[in-house]
């Protein structure tokens, strides 16, 4: 591999650009739209879909808050209330948080590492469709009064065949399966993309922290999600074909469900949180206008968080009568995981301290994250202590804690990320003024809603009750929380108005409106289908800040087909060229086959043989190469 000085004349450049445009654009028409495998299109679809689910989950939250605003309210009956809180949790965890945070990776990672598309682009499209089918299934259930009603973690025996009749829990189980398939696929794509497609020179120790965060998340998904995938299949089997896995009268064990679920469920919280840490690092670095302080420590903290997150699951089970030794172990682990997060927070503070911060909206959300998340972190250390946990278990104290952690740890960074990367995605800026309204309403709303819940929990208000008596004295704080929830709703409305406004009125963003250091800002906004006209190489951690005049570009990749440069895993040295597949409608067909299989499995085990046939057909159609397409053949002939 040599670096040569070459002459690039404008004519050749323009010809190559046109050729790239032709090779990488999606096909026209509806079919072209359905088969578009550009990571940016798929990423955007994930994000829009997840936002719709966020709004639906938010409406469910609002309904609960209205119901609880005063004692003995009769807006929702108990059965409907059970469905609503289960839908809220299931939606927010499985259909909103995980998909949107990993989708940010699908969109941004290839741009940040300087490549043209994600690894396995067709699989990526398939993953999106499977996720979409899962989300639609859950809401179809709600429409026919078959929404799950046993909580987002669906404990057996309540969720088992004996106590949950109908198909509500089966719909839950298969919805979870769909989202797991999609998340697992995404994890493999991100890991392979990061390992094999980084720009020459971007060795592992030069990767942006956001990419590190996505990589760690990918591994966490890979080892955590199979647990819940197995658990939900066990549950579905107990309900459909009378297996006895959770049935104590036949040697089964209800606690097995809790172990399997939380072995996934606790890493899940960090699967949501770690990409958000990546957002914060990107935002803090850019707006402090200096490289992040303590890069190696930051990377280690991310990796350690990933590992430790697998050692916490039993702290959800402190009241199940597990041995005291386990309690002590998991209590210690739960406190320990605060350390790497604390380290990162100190590094961000140091970065801001030593930098020249610009307090634009993305940075405001990053600071909001620090404050709100720290409150959640403190109550986290409190409930990590076994005696305290036993006291507040299943009360509103836990509701307060988990919302501080999730809203603080994921939604604040996510909003910050929207303000930060929206200009890259759409080419237009969001309104700074509306952004500040959004931020302050959100900060006030979140604290007004969830802070009183700490006290409600200490006063004994249990989770998941549909109403309470006036004598309990919980009315005032509940009303305050409801007012807070309405404030959150107002802030989200401002956010949506801002998005709409920006699409038509926003100021043009240019390539790099924030003077940011990473590669996604080196291309146009929005980026072309091939991402970079000339693929970049890098020499440091902040390529756009230290761009030397003679930084080489990559040449010699074919422009008449979708060819990418493959580099080595550790040092990102150029190693081979690879052709990515053309767009295809088969991922959609395969996703429909998958959907039919699991939906039929809700009703009859004959879904298994049916699925075997459908999926075989779909994947053969997908995988069978169709020779060379004619355009390519012509261009090869020209070359000869």
């Amino acid at each position, binding site marked *: *591999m040599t*670096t*040569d*000085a*070459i*002459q*690039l*004349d*404008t004519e050749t450049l323009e010809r190559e650009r046109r050729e790239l445009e032709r090779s990488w654009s999606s096909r026209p028409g509806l079919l072209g739209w359905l088969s578009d495998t550009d990571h940016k299109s798929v990423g955007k679809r994930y994000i829009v879909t997840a936002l719709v689910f966020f709004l639906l989950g938010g409406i469910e939250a609002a309904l609960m808050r209205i119901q609880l605003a005063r004692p003995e309210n009769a807006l929702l009956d108990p059965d409907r209330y059970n469905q609503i809180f289960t839908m809220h949790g299931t939606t927010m965890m499985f259909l909103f948080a995980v998909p949107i945070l990993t989708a940010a990776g699908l969109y941004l990672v290839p741009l940040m590492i300087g490549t043209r598309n994600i*690894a*396995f682009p067709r699989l990526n499209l398939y993953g999106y469709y499977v996720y979409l089918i899962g989300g639609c299934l859950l809401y179809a259930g709600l429409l026919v009064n078959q929404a799950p009603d046993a909580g987002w973690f669906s404990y057996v025996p309540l969720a088992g065949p004996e106590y949950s009749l109908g198909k509500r829990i089966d719909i839950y189980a298969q919805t979870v399966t769909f989202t797991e398939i999609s998340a*697992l696929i995404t*994890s*493999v794509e991100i*890991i*392979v993309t990061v*390992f*094999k497609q980084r720009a020459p020179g971007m060795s592992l120790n030069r990767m942006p922290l956001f990419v590190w965060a996505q990589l760690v998340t990918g591994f966490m998904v*890979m*080892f955590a*999600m*199979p*647990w819940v*995938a*197995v*658990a939900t*299949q*066990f549950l579905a*089997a107990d309900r459909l*074909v*009378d*297996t*006895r*896995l959770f049935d104590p009268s036949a*040697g*089964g*064990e209800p606690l*097995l469900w809790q*172990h399997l679920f939380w072995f996934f469920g606790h890493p899940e919280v960090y699967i949501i949180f770690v990409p958000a840490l990546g957002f914060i690092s990107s935002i803090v670095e850019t707006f402090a206008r200096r490289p992040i302080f303590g890069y190696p420590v930051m990377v280690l903290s991310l990796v350690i968080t990933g590992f430790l997150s697998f050692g916490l699951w039993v702290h959800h089970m402190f009241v199940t009568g597990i041995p005291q030794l386990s309690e002590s172990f998991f209590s210690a682990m739960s406190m320990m995981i605060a350390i790497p997060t604390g380290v990162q927070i100190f590094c961000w503070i140091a970065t801001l301290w030593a930098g020249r911060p610009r307090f634009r909206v993305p940075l405001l959300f990053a600071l909001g994250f620090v404050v709100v998340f720290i409150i959640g972190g403190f109550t986290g250390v409190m409930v990590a202590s076994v005696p305290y946990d036993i006291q507040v278990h299943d009360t509103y104290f836990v509701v307060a804690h988990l919302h501080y952690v999730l809203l603080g740890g994921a939604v604040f960074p996510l909003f910050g990320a929207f303000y930060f990367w929206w200009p890259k995605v759409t080419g237009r800026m969001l309104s700074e003024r509306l952004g500040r309204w959004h931020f302050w309403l959100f900060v006030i709303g979140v604290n007004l809603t969830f802070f009183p819940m700490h006290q409600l929990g200490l006063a004994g208000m249990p989770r998941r009750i549909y109403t309470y008596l006036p004598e309990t004295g919980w009315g005032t704080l509940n009303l305050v929380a409801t007012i807070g929830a309405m404030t959150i709703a107002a802030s989200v409305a401002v956010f949506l108005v801002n998005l709409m406004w920006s699409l038509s009125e926003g100021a043009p963003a240019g390539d790099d409106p924030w003077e940011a250091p990473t590669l996604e800002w080196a291309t146009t906004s929005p980026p072309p289908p091939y991402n970079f006209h000339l693929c970049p190489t890098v020499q440091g951690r902040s390529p756009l800040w230290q761009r030397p005049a003679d*930084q*080489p*570009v*990559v*040449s*010699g990749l074919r422009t008449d087909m979708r060819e990418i440069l*493959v580099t*080595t895993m550790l040092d990102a040295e*150029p*190693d*081979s*060229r*690879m*052709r990515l597949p053309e767009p295809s409608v088969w991922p959609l067909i395969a996703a429909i086959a998958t959907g039919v299989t699991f939906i039929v499995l809700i009703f009859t085990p004959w879904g298994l043989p049916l699925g*075997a046939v459908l999926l075989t057909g779909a994947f*053969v159609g997908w*995988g*069978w*190469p*169709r*020779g060379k397409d004619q355009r390519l053949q012509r261009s090869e002939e020209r070359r000869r």
Partner: protein
Amino acid sequence: MTAPVRALDASRLPTTVFDHRSHMWWGTLGFMLIEGTTLFVCVASYYYLRVNVTDWPPEPAALPSLFWPTLHVAVLLLSLVPVALADRAARRLDLAGLRRWFVVASLFALSFLYLRWKDFESLNVRWDANAYGSIAWMTAGFHGTILMLQVVETVIFTGFLFSGDFDERHFSDATDSAFYWYFFVGSWIPLYLTLYLSPRL
């Protein structure tokens, strides 16, 4: 107008690479880790349920039979030979050898369908008899999905080897297919020990 630019010339880099240099190898490894975790969860659940009861297998289940499952393991191990030979042929870019050994591998793959059926029978318990039966069936069933995948993939790929669409890039796919086969065989061994031998301990 011209602009002198320093450029890394990628045009001479190879397009057919094997093992960790190829995307598909990493993708295959990723799915192995996922499926390996799935099987690990099944085995963990198996032993978790076992400590719940004094008798294992609990009534009314009898001990699993050994003949068919052990034969199956032997056939699985034997199948590694043609697969390893196909793997080598692919690395030599030897299409004739690849075809030959993939035909043999396909025959092996088809025999696994029957042998897995016998595996289920040899458990000597129904899935709905008790939790022991359930977890045994589920574990063999989860590995069965990998088996199905392997059979379909091998047979289809063999057909593809004889079609006109095969070109040099696909030699690397053949080695990844072999790589997955090694995992498929290797992952059954601990499950075999768990399902058929551990109840005798």
